[in-house]
């Protein structure tokens, strides 16, 4: 049973369409679609009672901002979160995948997930793809062994650190951390420092922008502060607002519930008797 569930999936990429794609690119002059990157500033730090993760909210496709308010802090477990930089699809897919694996693992073991488990699952996955899965992650959480913060690079290497930054804005954010980080920060000091570091990335790095998302993880609780700070509001908002002139006429309405409520009747005594 255990071996079936833990079976390793088919390895690597599928190259069946390679010849056809190559022909399209060279002979037919087809331009390949660009991929959505998260320019990004993501940070994490360990404070007195746990871990604080922070991220900006800009997703870019080349030099265009594709999403002004995307979510870069992903859920891995009730006590673990992960910020992702790099190709948006890769970070989304890899964190979702390991999230599911961790859930199955929790059912098998009956215990709270540990951060090192998430770390090992992520690093073995990324190493198998030899850096082609372009996901650079900041993984943080609190388990029974205490608070943990790790950085994971696309090739599968990891570092355990008290404070960490990743993404194109990492140098700007690291400058803030290196000058102001101390061990044993309080929750408020930690949140302020993380906000400051992300803002440094937002305002000094072109690949990062918009708002600041924060996630505070302490023993037994996780708090996601979506859009904790919005230092880039939309300047010119039309006073007319949105209105649709022609309304669609409703001819007929029918509701089909997808989940049926079933009544379970408990029969006391010997029910199964002819």
């Amino acid at each position, binding site marked *: 049973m255990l071996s079936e569930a833990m079976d390793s999936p088919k390895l690597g990429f599928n190259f069946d369409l390679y010849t056809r794609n190559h022909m399209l690119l060279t002979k037919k002059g087809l331009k390949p679609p660009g991929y959505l990157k998260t320019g990004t500033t993501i940070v994490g730090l360990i404070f007195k009672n746990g871990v604080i993760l922070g991220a900006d909210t800009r997703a870019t496709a080349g030099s265009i901002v594709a999403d002004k308010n995307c979510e870069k802090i992903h859920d891995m477990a009730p006590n673990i979160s992960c910020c992702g930089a790099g190709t948006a699809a890769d970070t989304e897919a890899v964190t979702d995948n390991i999230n599911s694996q961790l859930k199955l693992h929790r059912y098998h073991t009956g215990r709270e997930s540990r951060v090192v488990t998430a770390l090992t699952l992520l*690093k*073995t996955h*990324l*190493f198998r793809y*030899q*850096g082609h899965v372009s996901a650079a992650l900041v993984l943080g959480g609190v388990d029974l062994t205490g608070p943990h913060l790790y*950085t994971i*690079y*696309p*090739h*599968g*290497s*990891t*570092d355990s*650190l008290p404070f960490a930054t990743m993404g*194109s804005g*990492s*140098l700007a954010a690291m400058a803030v951390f290196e000058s102001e980080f101390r061990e044993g920060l309080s929750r408020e000091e930690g949140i302020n420092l993380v906000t400051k570091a992300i803002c440094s990335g937002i305002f000094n790095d072109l690949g990062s922008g918009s708002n600041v998302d924060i996630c505070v993880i302490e023993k037994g609780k996780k708090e996601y502060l979506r859009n904790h700070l919005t230092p880039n509001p939309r300047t010119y908002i039309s006073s007319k607002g949105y209105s649709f002139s022609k309304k669609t006429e409703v001819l007929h309405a029918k509701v089909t519930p997808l989940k049926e409520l079933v009544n379970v009747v408990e029969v006391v005594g010997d029910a199964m008797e002819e």
Partner: protein
Amino acid sequence: MNDINSPHSMGTTIIGVPYAGDVILGADSRTSTGLYAANRDSDKITQLTDNVYLCRSGSAADSQIVSDYVRHFLHQHMMQLGQPATVKVAANLIRLLSYSNKNMLQTGLIVGGWDKYEGGKIYGIPLGGTIVEQPFAIGGSGSTYFYGFFDQEWKDGMTKDEAEKLVVKAVSLAIARDGASGGVVRTVIINSEDVTRNFYPGDTLPLWHEELAPQNSLLDILSSASPEPMVS
């Protein structure tokens, strides 16, 4: 390959020196991605078993994965053997992985430890997967800067303090000259009884030619060393 998206590598300086039957391993602490120090505080001396440690250099991902695999195989081996693993077995397991995957891996390793049959031993396993048992081993990009220094200074039968001083001096020489090495110097001393970890932060290292002492701010020394203004 000089930007933040380069693969994580440990340019590195790693050293392994046996002395008087025990072993000392030393390393710097810089992990670089291109020209940025991704981790200024890494621990490149990883534990394989209670009595065998490994110094890693080259690609961070490759060396971490190899050490994880070997730790697992060594553990299985120890369960079958019923006693602590020997340094030779650990080194050979690493060599088997490094050699058979030589096209994919880019990592130079130094294995050091103590076992009851041979005492303290050092094995070097450079790129390609050769295994070489050596009286001392140096590796990583920073090691090129003290080949001559080591040839001259190393002698057989050093004491623990002499050996540790030699290791720290050599790593600090490499840190001074190699851009890919830096941070602090970590050492691990393995003997028959126990394992001791030591840590030498930057300001405890000796200063070399033209190096400035660590300051809170360079403005402090600039003002004191300014020349007299020219008077006509």
